[in-house]
C-alpha cells in the first residue's frame, strides 16, 4: 500500500494535484472541472466545532418551544416541530412522518454530533477518538439529507397559504430554527475537506 499525503485528486474529474503547504491555506479550484479542492479557511476546525455546538443547542430549543400559533375566530391552535412531525404519524402516512423527522431533526443533529466527536479532540489536544474518521466521513455523506433550510421555505409557503383564513404568530422555536439554518449554512463554508482530513491524519498526540 503506497500513498502520498501531499497529493489529492479531484473527486469530480480524477485529476491529481500536489498541494504545497502554501496552497492548502488558500482557495484552490480544480483546473479542469472547477471543483473547489480547498476552501482556504483558517481556523476551520475551531469554527466547525463551535458552530456545531451552537446548532445542537438551538435544536434543543426548537424541539421544546412552540413553533407557530394560529388564531381563526374562536379557534386557536399551536404547533411545535414535534406536532409537525407527528401530524403524519397515522396509518399509511407513518413512513412519511419518519422521513420528515429524519430530514429536519435527526440528520442535522447527527451531523453536528459527528463533527464534534471527530474534531473536538483536535482542539483540546487529545488523540483522535476511535472511529473519528468514520464520523467525519458520515458528516459529509449526510450533508444533502439535512433539509432544515428547505423546511424553512416550506414554512414560509405554508404561512402565506394559511394567511387568508387565520392569523399566524411565530413562536420562540421559529426564530431558533431560522438561526439554526443560518448557523448551518455558515458552518458549511468552513467544511474544507482537505483541511479537516489533513488535520485528523496528522494528529499524533
Amino acid at each position, binding site marked *: 500500500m503506497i500513498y502520498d499525503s501531499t497529493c489529492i485528486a479531484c473527486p469530480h474529474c480524477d485529476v*491529481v494535484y500536489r498541494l504545497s503547504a502554501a496552497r492548502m491555506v488558500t482557495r484552490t479550484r480544480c483546473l479542469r472541472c472547477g471543483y473547489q479542492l480547498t476552501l482556504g479557511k483558517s481556523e476551520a476546525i475551531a469554527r466547525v466545532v463551535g458552530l456545531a455546538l451552537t446548532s445542537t443547542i438551538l435544536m434543543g430549543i426548537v424541539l421544546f418551544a412552540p413553533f407557530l400559533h394560529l388564531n381563526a375566530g374562536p379557534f386557536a391552535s399551536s404547533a411545535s416541530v414535534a406536532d409537525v412531525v407527528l401530524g403524519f404519524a397515522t396509518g399509511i402516512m407513518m413512513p412519511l412522518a419518519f422521513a420528515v423527522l429524519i430530514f429536519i431533526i435527526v440528520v442535522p443533529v447527527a451531523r453536528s454530533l459527528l463533527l464534534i466527536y471527530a474534531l473536538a479532540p483536535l482542539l483540546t489536544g487529545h488523540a483522535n477518538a476511535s472511529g473519528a474518521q468514520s464520523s*467525519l466521513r458520515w458528516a459529509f455523506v449526510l450533508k444533502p439529507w439535512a433539509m432544515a433550510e428547505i423546511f424553512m421555505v416550506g414554512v414560509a409557503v405554508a404561512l402565506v*397559504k394559511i394567511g387568508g383564513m387565520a392569523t399566524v404568530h411565530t413562536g420562540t422555536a421559529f426564530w431558533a430554527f431560522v438561526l439554526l439554518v443560518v448557523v448551518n449554512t455558515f458552518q458549511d463554508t468552513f467544511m474544507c475537506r482537505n483541511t479537516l482530513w489533513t488535520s485528523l491524519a496528522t494528529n499524533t498526540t
Partner: protein
Amino acid sequence: MDISGHQHDLITARDAGMVACTSCGLVASPDVESCPRCHARMQSRKDGSIQRVLAWLLAGLILYVPANIYPMLRTTQMFKEQDSTIVGGVITLIHHHAYAIGAIIFIASVLIPVGKFIVIAYLALLLSRPHTKDPHRLHILHAAVEFIGRWSMIDVFVVAILVALVQFDVLASIKPGLAAACFALSVVFTMLSAQAFDPRLIWDVTDKGTPK
C-alpha cells in the same frame, strides 16, 4: 504536478496507476480497498454506476405518477371535503392571485423533478457509449441536478405544516393524501440516483483523445 501547472499537464489518478478517494481526496496505489485516511471504499470508478443511476431513476419515475394522480391534501371545510393534487393546488393558488407561492410550488414540484428525470436519463444514456459532447457542460448539468434535487421536498414540508396547524374540527381540517408519501419517496430515489452517478465518467471520454 503542481497546481500552478498548465491545462495540458493534467494527469488523472487512473492514468498515474493510482486510485483516488472521493471522500477525502487521498491518492493511493490500486491494491488499497479502503482509504487509509478516511476509511471510505476506494474505487477508481464506481462499479455499475450507470445501472444504479438508471435503477433509482426508474423507481423515482414510477412513484412520480401516483404522486400526481392522488391527492396531496384533503381539506375538510364546513362538512365539505376537497382533495387537491400537486397541479390542482398550483391552479388554486393562481386563482387566489398568489402567483409567487404558486410559482414556488410549481417549480419545486413539477419543473425540478421533471427536469431532473430528463437530465439524469440524458447523462446516463449519453455516457454509456462514446460521445463528442463538451464535458464541461455535462459536468455543470450533473452538479446542478445534485444541488437542486433536494429542494423538491418543499411541498412535502408544506403539507406537514398545514396538517399540524389546521385542525379545527368542523370548521376546517387538513389531512395528508397518499401523493405526499409517493412524492417524498420519488424525491429520495432521484437524489440517490444523482448520487450514484460517478462524475469521473464524464471526463474519461476526453482522456481518450476526443476533441476539446
